[in-house]
């Protein structure tokens, strides 16, 4: 982790990730076509678009989770700090430690709440002592706005939490690993307005140090938390730009139709 920190401080390139001409195929199905997106440093980027347009697919390209899907193939170029992540020399395991992910469906491990959050730190050796690990677990749960609800049942199974609590547990789990880029696939889809506000606060807080990419179906949320927005439609990247520009002066008629609720 140390050298990551140093590298981060010396980097002058504002682009943390750059995707150029990305194509994704699921077997014969050409799911993503010619996508060019920049993920900027210390910025929240929102992906919006109707269901099935390829938002999750593109998100999974960014940390090579598509590798685990049979028959999926990715073409084009995706750079993380100037390095092609699909290069043969890049270890996807290390990549995923740097580019963390919160999945669309909550997927807590069948372990205790504590062990769920401690999973990443343990694997990557982020804590030198039990006390330090406790500290990481607590602060991660606090940041995911879950601490008050689970602080008395840290040894209870994570799978026994409610749907929204599980989702926040998965957010805490991802935050605990201390990634440089955090990919969040509809992190608030199962949350009530209070928890949603807390998670949005967390996203804003994470922006101080990391890049955050968030997929959302809520235009308001995209407008509230993001600085950059990408609009996908039928596998194409239709428009990418400043959030304010996308929401006030969209260039493409399809974008305008979507954000005003006419297609979707």
């Amino acid at each position, binding site marked *: 982790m140390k050298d990551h920190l140093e590298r981060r401080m010396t980097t002058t390139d504002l682009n943390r990730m750059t995707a150029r001409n990305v194509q994704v195929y699921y077997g014969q199905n050409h799911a993503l076509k010619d996508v060019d997106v920049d993920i900027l440093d210390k910025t929240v980027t929102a992906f919006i678009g109707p269901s099935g347009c390829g938002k999750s697919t593109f998100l999974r390209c960014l940390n090579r989770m598509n590798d685990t899907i049979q028959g999926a193939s990715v073409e084009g170029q995706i750079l993380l700090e100037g390095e092609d992540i699909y290069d043969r020399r890049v270890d996807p*395991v290390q990549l995923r430690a740097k580019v963390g992910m919160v999945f669309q469906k909550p997927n807590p491990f069948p372990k*205790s709440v504590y062990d769920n959050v401690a999973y*990443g730190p343990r*694997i990557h050796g982020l804590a030198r002592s039990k006390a330090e690990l406790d500290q990481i677990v607590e602060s991660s749960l606090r940041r995911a706005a879950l601490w008050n609800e689970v602080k008395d049942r840290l040894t209870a*199974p994570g799978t026994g939490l409610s749907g929204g609590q599980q989702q926040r547990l998965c957010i805490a789990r991802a935050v605990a*690993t201390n990634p440089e880029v955090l990919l969040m696939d509809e992190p608030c889809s199962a949350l009530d307005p209070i928890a949603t506000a807390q998670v949005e606060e967390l996203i804003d807080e994470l922006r101080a140090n990391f890049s955050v990419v968030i997929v959302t179906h809520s235009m308001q949320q995209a407008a509230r938390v993001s600085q950059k927005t990408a609009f996908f439609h039928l596998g194409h990247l239709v428009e990418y730009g400043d959030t304010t520009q996308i929401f006030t002066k969209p260039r493409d008629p399809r974008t305008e139709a979507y954000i005003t609720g006419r297609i979707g």
Partner: protein
Amino acid sequence: MSISLFLLLLLALAAAAYVAGRARAEMVAGGDIRRLHSLPRQHGLNLAIAFALPALVGYAAWRMAGAGGGLWSTLLILALGAASALAVWLALKPETRARNEVEAATKLFLIACSVIAVATTIGIFLSLIFETIAFFQKYPAAKFLFGTKWAPDFRGGSDLGVIPLLWGTLYVSAIALAVAVPVGLFAAIYMSEYASPRVRALAKPAIELLAGIPTIVYGLFALITVGPMLRDWIAQPLGFGTSGASVATAGLVMGVMIIPFVSSLSDDIINAVPQSLRDGSLGLGATPSETIRQVVLPAALPGIVGAVLLAASRAIGETMIVVLGAGAAAKLSLNPFEAMTTMTVKIVSQLTGDTDFAAPETLVAFALGLTLFLITLALNILALVIVRKYREQYE
């Protein structure tokens, strides 16, 4: 009337009752089946059940009471069913809840099936108990349970200590499991987590083939190949003895035989672990093997314990491989290259040939059988405890 004829008649009449029930329901509905609480076919089924159930129960009771299946008594029983069906037929109204009645009958049928399974186990257990009690009246239980010598003699004065047989059984099974559990589990992990679908589609049936080979063929393999090989290459050079038949031979071959029990079941169970859990772990930067060890295997543990247990029961009950691979001499020894034997082998040898079912030398077979039964029962309970403990921790 023979049972098969009776059943045939019963089936035909039940079908007739079904048709009658349907027709009656359609009639009371007056052409508009929406007026009915239940569909016509449910009324039909209800009527068929109303006929068949009393007839079947009556027939079974009649037979169990020891009465023969005479023509008149059989007809009487069928008439009983017909009367019950007629009562239902007459009472059929649009609001009759035939659907719920059929549901209740279905439940009854399912309960009956599980009772059959449990009752069989209890029946086997009881028959073993009675014979075992008869044995203990002729031979002291303490000498059987703690005797370290097995030397049956039909002329009298036998030593029937179970310890050497128990030792042989556990020793052989332990070696078999020591072979099968790691090999089977790792093969399952490879097949489910690493192998491409093509390789898996080939490897899985190939491994399962091992379970299809008759045990006598394994026995021959142990006798003519593995036994001499172990003797010439390991036992003799290292000074462990010169016996071709040995615990190690039987255990090794038996281990190969039960590999598919572990691998095939574990593979299915590991495959059933949701992909989202793997994704969650990989997405946090865990390697595939870390993911398997820390997420997939713990989630699959209860099923894997079950698979291992099934394999253990197979090993404990195996006879043929032991006869040919380990010999038939009851011995209490630590040396794995020594010939030994197991309880199942001795059950067979005590019950074959000229047997006198009053002699303790014969009755001991039932005591051995009961011991085997109790061992497998204990294994099952152990597995339950392990699974429950794990569940408490995680779920």
